[in-house]
Structure formats: C-alpha cells, structure tokens
C-alpha cells in the first residue's frame, strides 16, 4: 500500500510482534495464576489477586513508571536481568513487557472464569483412571478451558495492540525499536492537522486487530464445539 510510509509499516510490524509475544509469553503465567486463583486457597491469595489487577486499576502512565523503576537498567529486577543478558529498556522486548503487564489482568480473568466452569467431576474421573494431578490438568482441564484461554488471549492481544501509556512511559518511542502503532497514532494526534494520518493508522490497527479477532473467534468456536463435544 502506497499510503503507509516505511516507518509506519515498521510500526505495524512492531505492534504485531509486540502484541504477539506479549500474549504468548503471558499465557503460561496467566493460566498458572488463573488456576491458582480459581482452584487453590493459600495465604495471600487476595493479595495476588490484587496485584494481578493493579495494571487495570492504575493509570497506564503510572504502571509504565513503575515498570521503568523496576525493570529499567538501574531497577532492581532490570539490573539483575541485564547480567544474564535480558534487557527491556528501550527495546521492543520492553514494549512487549509493558503490553503483557497491561493485558495480564484481562487474560487471567477470562481464563479463571473458564477454569471455574470446568466440572471437577471430570477431573476426578481422570484421577481414578490413574492420571496424576499434572496429567489431569494437561489432558482434561486444559483442553476444556481452551475456549477461555483463547478468549483471554484475544482480549490480551487486542489490549496489547492498543496499549500506549505504559509502553511509551517505559520504553519511550524509538522508531523501529519501540514505536508501536498507538505511539505513532498519538504522535500524529499531537499536531494540528495530524488527524488524517492518525486515522490512516487507526484503520490499519483496526483491520489488523479485527482480523486477529475474527480468526480467533472462528478458532474458539471450533474448539468450543469440540469441547462441548457437538
């Protein structure tokens, strides 16, 4: 397409990459936390629940700022990670981290809800057949909550595609490295007459996210049907 400059294409590609990884990397932890919140009771459960929801409650800028303090190269976690070669600051990985953190509560909520809907009687049946807890989870619970996981993942992906405040505060806006679609859109909106360009990018972002949404809907429906066994 002619009407997107190379830098804008870069932003599109980067947004996709960031959202994809934010979602993918967040999933295992999301499933784990959702399972813990849904099925276990342990001291500090409500605190964990609170922490998970924090990014939703706080203005994104604050989250970004806290990320900067924690995962920046001078931050307590950031400096540790740096020693083993993991750097978030001013990298696309940082954008993914920010997007992942911001979308995490959405993911967890969706997955948790679907875990709560699984009939423990089926898990019991699997256990009587000799499946260990781990296996029960992998072979019964996980497939049954797949629609919930997909729903959570879509939600997270969509959120990641739109995430702006935390991302720019944490990793700022470096074209080609951390300039995602939302930051590009924001930039256009800051200047008089930039609406047109902004809307072009909005369109791209809508098309991309909607396609992902449609695909995942189809996938989710197919899986839900499998799971319902119809």
């Amino acid at each position, binding site marked *: 397409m002619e009407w997107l400059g190379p830098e804008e294409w870069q932003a599109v590609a980067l947004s996709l990459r960031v959202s994809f990884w934010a979602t993918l990397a967040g999933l295992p932890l999301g499933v784990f936390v959702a399972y813990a919140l849904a099925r276990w009771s342990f001291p500090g459960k409500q605190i964990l629940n609170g922490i998970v929801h924090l990014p939703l409650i706080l203005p994104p800028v604050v989250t970004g700022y806290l990320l900067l303090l924690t995962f*920046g*190269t001078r931050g307590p976690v950031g400096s540790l990670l740096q020693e083993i070669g993991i750097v978030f600051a001013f990298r696309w990985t940082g954008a993914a981290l920010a997007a992942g953190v911001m979308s995490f509560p959405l993911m967890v909520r969706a997955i948790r809800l679907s875990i709560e809907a699984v009939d423990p009687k089926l898990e019991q049946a699997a256990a009587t057949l000799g499946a260990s807890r781990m296996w029960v989870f992998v072979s019964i619970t996980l497939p049954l909550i797949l629609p919930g996981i997909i729903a959570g993942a879509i939600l997270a992906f969509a959120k990641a595609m739109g995430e702006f405040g935390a991302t720019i505060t944490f990793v*700022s*806006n470096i074209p080609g490295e951390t300039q995602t679609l939302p930051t590009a859109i924001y930039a*256009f*909106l*800051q*200047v*008089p007459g*930039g609406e047109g360009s902004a809307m072009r990018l909005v369109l791209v972002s809508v098309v991309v996210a909607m396609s992902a949404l449609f695909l995942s809907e189809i996938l989710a429906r197919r899986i839900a049907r499998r799971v319902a066994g119809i």
Partner: protein
Amino acid sequence: DQVTVFAAASMKNAMQTVSDRFNEATGHDLAVSLAGSSALARQIQQGAPADLFISANPGWMDALEKEGLIVPETRVDLLGNVIVLIAHGEADKVDIGPELDLPGMLGENHLAMAMVDAVPAGIYGKAALKSLGLWDAVAPKVAQADNVRAALALVATGEAPLGIVYATDAAATDKISVIGTFPADSHPPIVYPAAAVTGRDNPAVSEFLAFLRTLAARNAFEAQGFIVMAD
C-alpha cells in the same frame, strides 16, 4: 463568577497559585482543566466550555485562530521557556554548540526527549539540534517520550544519561543536573500563547486576562521558572 481555563498540563503548579490569587483579588473562581495542548484545542473545536485557552504550542493556537474559535484581539504570548540539556546525577557543564560531541557523550545510550515531531519540547529540541548540526548523528539515539515530564523521568532514573527538557521541568529534581542551555536562536521562540475563546460572553474573562498581567501573576509564573512575556 467562574472562569474556565484550559491550560497546558505543564502549567499546573503556576495555575494553582494564580487561581488562588485571582480569587483573592476579584472574588471570581478559576476552574483549570489541565491536559495536553492538542487535546484541549480539539475540545475547544468541539465546543468545550472553555473561556480561555493557554497553549504550550503556538501551532494549536494558530489552528484555533484560523477557525475563528478564539478572539484574536485577546491573544497574547503569555510565557516563554528555555530548553536545556540535562544529565543524570552530578555532571559537568558543557558548551552547547556545533562542536558538542553529543554522540560521544551518549555512547551506547539514549538521549531522552519529548516526541520530536509531535510534542512542543521535542519539536524545539529537534530544531535546535538540527540548527547546530547535531541531529543526524544523534537521531537514532533519541528516545522520545510522550511529554517532557516522561523524558525527564528517563534521565532521573538514569535510564537515559542525557535529555532535553524545558528549564522549568529541570528545576524539579535533584537527580539530574542541567549541563547546558540551548541558545535561544537555535530554535523557534518558545512561547505559551493565551487567548479568550469566542462565543463565551463571560465578563470575568477580561478580568482574568487583565489579572494575568499583574505582578501577582507574574511572580507565580516566574516562581515556576517561566519567562513572563506579556506586555
């Protein structure tokens, strides 16, 4: 009566003092809505109940003026500002000029600025670096924040060793030091224009416009590091 002022977010502290003093002096209340200049300007385009607009960006004021949304006679360049080069922690002063080895000072690290094509402080900074011939060398190293304060935070946390911000912001933290001031002629003049919004016949507005020129107001702005340009 109440005067509703839409003011650039960076003016928060000053506007607070001004608001109190205006109330003391006239008995009128001031409601100040603080947001990015772009958001405020667009809201005025959509009929926001603002009596007065103070923008951090002359461009947006021009845009409103072109659309007849402000009263041109009331437009004044209220405040001025200066952009400075800051460094993390204690650092030696440098001379800002074409021979400044900014890339060398940065090394592998980033220069924190506000968005160089979108946010006023960034636009001014980029213009200054360009006119000094430094831009091309540092451009790939620039980390652009969505506003000046975020750029400042990057330097304050040490994430970026250097940054370009307004002098007014630089005063805020001792985690950074100002190591140089950009020559005023290296960038377009930094001004904060103010103007009354059209169609709001609020008599208190002219009182407030007048109040902005008083010593009380001037002191409040200067206390925050602004250069008061009015009169």
